[in-house]
């Protein structure tokens, strides 16, 4: 089985984002970028499947400008076998991403697509579900345990009230949640090796997909800042304030 893992390049999760002065978006210039953390978990899971003998090849795909090749190299350094870069200049909405990925799936015929449950930039949480819809495949979302056995997979999903166990038919899209695994760090020798691994480039036109945005961003703003309040001296004062000042208990 081949496993396909789409990876997104986003602002590093440790960076405090700033809204542009003209309210057109957030500042991306000279900001540290990294692989979306949920996608790292997806890459890790694909590698574990391969190491356990459940997958023969792990292919990563990323959509975006030339710098996305760095994100692909990161996944290759973790251990993925091959990369595909789809060149695109502007922000692409999840629906268009799903259409591009569908075209890649049709070329590559993976038995499983592992995606992060959401990207930490736009927080959409859509791409995996949309790709599953377009392919007519089963979808296992927000997954914290995955056990592939032949033409089915047993999954555990993180849901509002706790956990849910499902069985899904393969091939499938599985969107991964935080507790599925802890991604490995790439070692220096593996980073060197990754530079020689194959990385193909495709254009949006090659795949014949219309990526024109459907939504118009009217403005992007800073949220109202919350002001720090006061420090209380002890528990007695705290309870007194909550009762008489804030009137919440």
């Amino acid at each position, binding site marked *: 089985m081949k496993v396909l893992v789409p990876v997104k390049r986003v602002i590093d999760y440790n960076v*405090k*984002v700033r809204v542009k002065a003209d309210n057109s978006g*957030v500042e991306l210039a000279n900001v540290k970028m990294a692989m979306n953390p949920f996608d790292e978990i997806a890459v890790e899971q694909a590698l574990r499947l391969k190491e356990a003998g459940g997958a023969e090849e792990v292919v990563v795909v990323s959509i975006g400008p030339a710098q996305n090749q760095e994100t692909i190299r990161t996944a290759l350094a973790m251990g993925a076998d091959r990369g595909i870069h789809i060149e695109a200049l502007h922000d692409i909405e*999840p*629906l268009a991403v*799903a259409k591009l990925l569908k075209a890649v799936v049709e070329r590559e015929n993976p038995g499983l697509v592992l995606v992060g449950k959401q990207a*930490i*930039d*736009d*927080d*959409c*949480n*859509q*791409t*995996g*579900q*949309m790709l*599953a*819809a377009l392919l007519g*495949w089963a*979808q296992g*979302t*927000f997954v914290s345990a995955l056990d592939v056995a032949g033409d089915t997979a047993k999954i555990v999903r*993180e*849901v*509002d*009230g*706790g*956990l*849910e*166990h*499902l*069985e*899904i038919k393969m091939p499938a899209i599985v969107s991964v949640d*935080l*507790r599925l695994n802890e991604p490995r760090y790439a070692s220096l020798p593996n980073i060197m090796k990754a530079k020689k691994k194959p990385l193909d480039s495709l254009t949006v036109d090659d795949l014949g997909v219309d990526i024109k945005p*459907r*939504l*118009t*961003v009217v*403005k*992007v*703003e*800073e*949220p109202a800042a*919350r002001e*720090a*309040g*006061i*420090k*209380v001296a*002890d*528990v*007695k004062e*705290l*309870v007194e*304030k*909550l009762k008489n000042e*804030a009137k919440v*208990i």
Partner: protein
Amino acid sequence: MSILVFCDHDNGQFGAATLNAVSAAQKIGGDIHLLVAGDTSGTIAAQAAAVAGVAKVLVADGAEYAHGLAENLAPLICDLASQYSHILAPATTTGKNVMPRVAALLDVMQISDIIKVDDANTFQRPIYAGNALSTVRSDEAIKIITVRSTAFEAAAEGGSAAIETISNNGDSGLSSYVKSELSSSERPELTSAPIVISGGRGMQDGANFAMLEKVADKLGAAVGASRAAVDAGFVPNDYQVGQTGKVVAPDLYVAVGISGAIQHLAGMKDSKVIVAINKDDEAPIFQVADFGLVADLFDAVPELEKELG
């Protein structure tokens, strides 16, 4: 203009978050219909019909809809879509699972997790874990939307909508439900509780959450946790408040032994009153707290329980 709201429920109880989605639909304006799909939709349908402002309840009763499987629900919703200008769902794990599948089948770009309705086409939603707010306009013929429940009031009771049964379109055969491991608790549900008390890494051990539970029982509060506490194995994942866990906005949020990582703040910073108890007076949680207490939580929490009488 007609709006379809997908009803999230567990076959026994009408999901509270659906009421917030109805309220968002009221802000858009138009006839509001609720879709109830599930195994025991009869009882849920009656609850749905009693929601104020709902004109009609559509019921699809069938085992294939009982567990929120997106592969079965999406075609059902798509069959109804042409009659509606908007289809809304609460941004619960079920809503988040099902709606993008609907949107892709309809070739529509979804708007996730809205927190404000500007007009029938324009909505505000948080991006970067709430560190920025994006206002987007959709010119799609059908707007597919998920609604952040904490951003909208719950719709009131007092409606008497007509109930109409619609036909099922069967099981996709793509996925099947096995079982649930749901946390059972006498306490109110985290996302709708008026008071939430959460513990972080500072709790040191899962057993110490008993201290918070005692306080919670006195206040009628729900108990939550930071990601650090969940990752350390102190409490199950459904306790997690934060960007990747639950988003809460209670009247009172008490953060105990939580440093205040951006991740956590994203899930609770819209609470009306925030209390922080932490022994590190430099902890970032104090920058958002209305009332901060610099103290050892192992002294302060039992004292708090005593003070509450």
